[in-house]
């Protein structure tokens, strides 16, 4: 019994402390988010069953009332911050993420006063044009030097695109590696994941992009595929060790020539819709 009385006394002290804390935040105009409301509510909950007297219950209610006032202050603080000139990067970033592109553009248009200007030829641009014209070879000479030939349409590989600088090798490999890590994560303990569950995304465009990258994951030896034609099931299995680098592409291919075969996998819009419905 005395221990119960002691517990109540400690509880009363704690609750008075809560009331004092909340009041000081209100009176001193401190940042209301300095108060951890969850903690305070947990303390109230902890002692609530102990209260028998109306006096203690009133104290509890008062503390709850003060906490509610702090929550109100927190709400006002957020509002004030959002309307004043202060710009909280986090808040702004969140707003940008939540708002639609259309809404952001609409807001921007209200603060945008574009310059009215007219571009016209100037002495300097005339000089530049003249210099360019003087250095320009006659058309027949230009055609000769460039040796223009009629080329029939054909196909080009990714490696060739990289070589002529249209595709960036490093960026692509980086993207592929991040997809490989994602695959390893999603495959989990089972060590494999359904093909469509991995490549499927919210948009058809993104799904196609993922399927495209996945095809390279398999080709370059970052992952393998398990195909069950009868069940119409395809699984992706990530390999734990990374391939041996860029030379892997060529050497690996040579080594695995006998085992390598191509599997065309259609990624049609209908199939994507079907997958989305199943999700």
């Amino acid at each position: 019994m005395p221990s119960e009385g002691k517990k109540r006394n400690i509880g009363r002290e704690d609750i008075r402390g809560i009331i004092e804390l909340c009041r000081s935040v209100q009176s001193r105009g401190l940042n209301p988010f300095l108060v951890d409301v969850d903690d305070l509510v947990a303390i109230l909950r902890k002692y609530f069953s102990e209260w028998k007297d109306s006096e203690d219950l009133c104290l509890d209610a008062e503390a709850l009332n003060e906490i509610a006032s702090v929550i109100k202050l927190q709400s006002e603080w957020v509002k004030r911050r959002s309307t004043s000139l202060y710009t909280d990067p986090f808040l702004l970033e969140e707003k940008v993420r939540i708002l639609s592109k259309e809404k952001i553009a609409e807001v921007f248009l209200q603060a945008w006063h574009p310059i009215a200007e007219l571009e016209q030829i100037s002495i300097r641009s005339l000089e530049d044009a003249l210099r360019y014209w003087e250095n320009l070879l006659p058309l027949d000479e230009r055609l000769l030097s460039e040796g223009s030939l009629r080329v029939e349409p054909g196909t080009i590989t990714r490696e060739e695109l990289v070589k002529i600088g249209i595709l960036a090798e490093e960026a692509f490999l980086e993207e592929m590696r991040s997809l490989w890590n994602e695959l390893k994560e999603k495959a989990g303990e089972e060590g494999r994941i359904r093909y469509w569950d991995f490549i499927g995304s919210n948009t058809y465009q993104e799904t196609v992009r993922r399927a495209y990258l996945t095809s390279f994951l398999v080709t370059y030896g970052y992952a393998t595929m398990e195909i069950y034609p009868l069940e119409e099931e395809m699984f992706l299995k990530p390999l734990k060790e990374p391939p041996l680098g860029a030379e892997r592409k060529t050497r690996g291919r040579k080594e695995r020539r006998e085992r390598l075969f191509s599997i065309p996998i259609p990624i049609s819009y209908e199939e994507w819709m079907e997958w989305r419905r199943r999700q």
Partner: protein
Amino acid sequence: MEKETVRRPRGRRKAYYTMKMRRAIHLLLFKRHSKPGAKGWELRRILGPDYMKVIRVLDDYLENLDLKVNMVFEEGVDKENLENPTPEQLNKARFYITLRGTLTPRETKLLGWRIDDIAALAITISHIISKDGKAPRKEVEDLLRTKLPSWRTEMNLNRFIRYGYIGEDENGQLYLDWRTRVEVDSRKLIDLLLRTEVEETAGLYNQSTSFSMETEDQEGEN
């Protein structure tokens, strides 16, 4: 000079200012340098010492056309002193003619701006402002990627740099450049962005998501 203009008969004074206004509009509208507009000292040299009066008359005239003469002081000028700038500050200030009001989304399309591009510009500018005027390019790109495809993000940032809305230093930090200072009411932009109601926007977000999906799908099919 001020005394001379006061002494002019009314008709001659009107003709005088009309002539000066014409000269001023030529200087301000036609692009002669890499940047549009004219510096204060250029205006003073061509329009005379009472050029600020000419600018004020021109500004009143342009109001009917929804245009205004915008005066942008050099960076670092104390904003509190802008009410009464010194002749030195005016000399170094740059004067532009800008839209007094705002454009509608339809009008921006006619100017060659896509809604996506405008949203990207708004996000870029607001993010840089929130980071006290400088933000790493990668950070801005990551933020833009939440709204735009990667290829469009890079293209847009390069375009904004080319137009003078933002600049990039040797450390890959983006900052607000001259065109943003001229064209964008930064305070208003941040204020409006933060004040936009979330409840309202949540609905719009869903709407826009489905819309963009449709367009993407159409593009994909094409």
